[in-house]
């Protein structure tokens, strides 16, 4: 196994959790690489574990990448916040790329099953959501963070409350406003 650039990755993750969201651009190739290996390993097993969530892979991927002594993971909000961001970027970048390629192609003909069509639809929805989330973050960062943690990070209401250090009822209120607002924003497209 080759050398892992843990120094660099750790530094980038620190920058990321200090609020520098652009650090994720530099991190992504490294994370993707690790994710690919992990996913490939799980799939080549005799019976792939269908219950394992992709978010677990994201967590595992950068646990492997990070020098635990330097990155301060006492703050669980860091860990889950970063994981959710990475997951969001992974899915949205894929959706944007997918969407750009399919424009102009008659994708209907190539459908081997319904699932490909649904994938195309899903891509458009994800892109719309990502745009809407950016707009939400412009006036209410906390709500955007809640949505990112829950939808991309896979956290429950209770887990989100725990990670952010607020009451469950607060998260519920953030969530219901955010859902309504994002729905309205996405309808505009």
């Amino acid at each position, binding site marked *: 196994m080759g050398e892992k650039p843990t120094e660099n990755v750790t530094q980038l993750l620190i920058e990321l959790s200090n609020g520098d969201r652009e650090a994720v651009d530099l991190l992504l190739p490294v994370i*993707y690489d690790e*994710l*690919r290996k992990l*996913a*490939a390993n*799980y*799939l*080549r097993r*005799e019976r*792939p*574990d*269908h219950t*394992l*969530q*992709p978010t677990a*892979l994201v967590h595992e991927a950068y646990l492997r990448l990070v020098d635990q002594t330097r990155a301060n993971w006492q703050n669980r909000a860091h860990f889950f916040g970063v994981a959710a961001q990475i997951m969001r970027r*992974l*899915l949205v970048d*894929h959706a944007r*790329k*997918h969407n750009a*390629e399919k424009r102009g192609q008659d994708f209907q*003909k*190539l*459908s*081997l*099953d319904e*699932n*490909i069509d*649904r*994938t195309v639809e*899903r891509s458009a929805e*994800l892109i719309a*959501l990502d745009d809407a989330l950016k707009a939400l973050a412009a*006036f*209410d960062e906390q709500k955007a963070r809640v*949505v990112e943690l*829950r*939808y*991309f990070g*896979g956290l429950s209401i209770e887990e989100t409350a725990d990670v952010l250090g607020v009451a469950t009822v607060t998260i519920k*209120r953030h969530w*219901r*406003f955010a*859902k*309504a*607002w*994002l*729905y*309205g924003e*996405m*309808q505009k497209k």
Partner: protein
Amino acid sequence: MTPEHWRQVEEIFQAALDLVPAERSTYVSQACADDSGLRRDVEAMLSQHESAGNLLEKPPYGETELSALAAMEALATEDDGDGDPMIGRRLGAYSIEREVGRGGMGAVYEALRVDKEFAMRVPYPHNISLCITSHDSSADFMTRS
């Protein structure tokens, strides 16, 4: 729309939802007073709350025949370049490895049998060519000698 505006909208929105439905519109009228812009946004938000339904309730990576893990692998491998959504997909016991040709009928892919039981019976992975036709949505399996 300023953050302050949305804070006002939210305050009334949340308070209205804490009331029983019958009391909401009276409350909203009172709370918004003469501010028609505020009222418009609050009412829109309340309507959207009703309509939003299942939005964001299902995970973004679910629901295909592929396991969530296979979807993740497809995501990760697509980044390598040709962007063909077929590459890396699992079809039954086969994993689609690469495109080997393209014709009038569709694309021909090389697929690898990843069924472990099968692999035990032959010393090498059994490669097949998979012809995916574009007009009848069927896959014809052709074995390669």
